[in-house]
């Protein structure tokens, strides 16, 4: 273990979904922050610094939030790593606590998308991939087509990820979608980027999630006796420039992110009881779990179809419902994953509780960069 763990004193969310245009980003962030502070029993006066993850929130969104919340004057920083922005903010807070800079840090992941993003997301216009017509769904569709050809997997097995995650979301009051869906619905949905259809894709969403992280001195400041779940470490890697004609689904970036997670946390892959995985698309959950080494290469689709990664299975993945069901307000997702891990490790996740959860991993992948195997990947390791 390289740095001291961060104690999770409180977590909170606003339900993800589609909010009216006049519900401001700041208001959603405040809602999540107040939930987390209340969960921690913390006054604003106890908070030393604010870390905000967002992508589309505009300049100094964090300071706009601080000025409305009552944290004006504190150190506030904004963190953008696309869909890994919230988790990156958590990593920066963890580092600041371990460095002795703060004892109590508030992290907010927040995004308002439905009034400013339509038809899907794509890279920055400066990226070469954007110029040739790349959209995120297309990249995952090409991954899926290759996966089907290389591993003898079936379209139905990939679709099983959506069926599984939506079944989990029935028990998650914070999820955008809480209805079960059938395999036939996934297979028959409107095509987005073949072979993927609408129900293989996470939605465009609004939402916010917040986490109060503490040092042991911070816990004493908040008057918290029992320590509760801890963030042992947060890995962060970026994609590398690829050469050659190798496996399109090699997921070396996920492998490296996993190694960072184990190195920073001292926890090993065999210790993990559940995973919150960045299932922005069905196929993404499959190949990323394989890249981490938590599922054998080429077996992820079969495992999803066989129930191995379902609640009650050997390694539950996305008990929250994942991005597919909880929704994907991109900057908020990493913080929402840590909320879910906290509830799971406290044993308070209700109908979606993973029995006996002691150690858990949350994975986010944010953005794409031409010629590389990804933008940013974060791996949060927590224990009860």
């Amino acid at each position, binding site marked *: 273990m390289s740095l001291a763990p961060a104690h999770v004193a409180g977590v909170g969310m606003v339900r993800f979904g589609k909010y009216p245009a006049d519900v401001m980003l700041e208001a959603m962030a405040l809602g999540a922050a107040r939930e987390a502070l209340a969960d921690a029993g913390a006054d604003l006066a106890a908070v030393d610094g604010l870390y905000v993850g967002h992508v589309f929130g505009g300049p100094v969104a964090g300071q706009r939030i601080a000025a409305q919340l009552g944290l004006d004057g504190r150190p506030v920083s904004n963190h953008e790593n696309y869909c890994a922005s919230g988790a990156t903010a958590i990593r920066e807070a963890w580092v600041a606590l371990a460095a002795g800079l703060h004892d109590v840090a508030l992290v907010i992941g927040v995004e308002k998308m439905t009034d400013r993003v339509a*038809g899907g997301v*794509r890279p920055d216009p400066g990226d070469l991939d954007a110029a040739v*017509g790349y959209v995120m769904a297309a990249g995952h569709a*090409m991954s899926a087509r*290759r996966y089907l*050809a290389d591993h003898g997997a079936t379209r139905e097995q990939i679709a099983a990820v959506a069926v599984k995650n939506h079944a989990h979301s029935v028990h998650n009051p914070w999820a955008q979608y809480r209805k079960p869906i059938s395999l036939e619905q996934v297979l028959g949905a409107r095509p987005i980027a073949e072979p993927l259809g609408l129900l293989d894709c996470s939605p465009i969403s609004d939402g916010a999630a917040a986490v109060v992280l503490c040092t042991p001195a911070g816990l004493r400041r908040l008057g918290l006796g029992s320590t509760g779940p801890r963030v042992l470490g947060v890995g962060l890697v970026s994609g590398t*420039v690829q050469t050659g004609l190798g496996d399109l689904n090699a997921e070396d970036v996920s492998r490296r992110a996993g190694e960072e997670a184990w190195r920073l946390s001292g926890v090993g892959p065999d210790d993990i009881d559940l995973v919150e995985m960045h299932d922005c698309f069905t196929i993404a959950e499959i190949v990323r779990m394989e890249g981490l080494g938590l599922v054998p290469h080429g077996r992820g689709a079969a495992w999803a179809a066989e129930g191995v990664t379902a609640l009650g299975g050997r390694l539950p993945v996305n008990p929250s419902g994942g991005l597919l069901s909880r929704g994907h307000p991109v900057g908020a997702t990493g913080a929402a994953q840590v909320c879910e891990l906290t509830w799971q490790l406290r044993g308070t996740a209700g109908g979606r509780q993973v029995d006996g959860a002691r150690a858990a991993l949350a994975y986010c992948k944010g953005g794409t960069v031409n010629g590389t195997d990804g933008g940013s990947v974060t791996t949060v390791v927590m224990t009860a």
Partner: protein
Amino acid sequence: MPSAESPPATRGRPFREGLLALDPPRLLGSRCAGCGATAFPARAFCPACRTGVVEPAELSTSGRVHSFTVVRQAPPGTEVPYTLAWVDLPADEVRLMAQVVGVAPEAVELDMPVDLELTTFGTADDGTELVGFRFRATVAVAA
């Protein structure tokens, strides 16, 4: 954003400097003098061995489809459907992303041979045509 119907480009300038040559049409990459790895677009370092000196390289125009999708939904302003592919250039051991034309979406297959073709990627502020690239199915098939 190019559409499948846009005509092949005949004049203008590359939409990004150093990305391609117009006559004859070639994609421009970089090749490591040390390990031989080729990169596209050109980079100032070798992504494979990290130590070799890199030199400019014209890439082969013959490719094959490693994977593909038919994009049916895109942000406003982008005409759909279109076929997007990972195209392998076996002679250079380079994989790149590009649109594929000259073949109906339902007729695209893995390992299908394709050839480089220049196409318009828009117009510059001074009215000059900006030239980009795509690939065309080598064997005549119903488009």
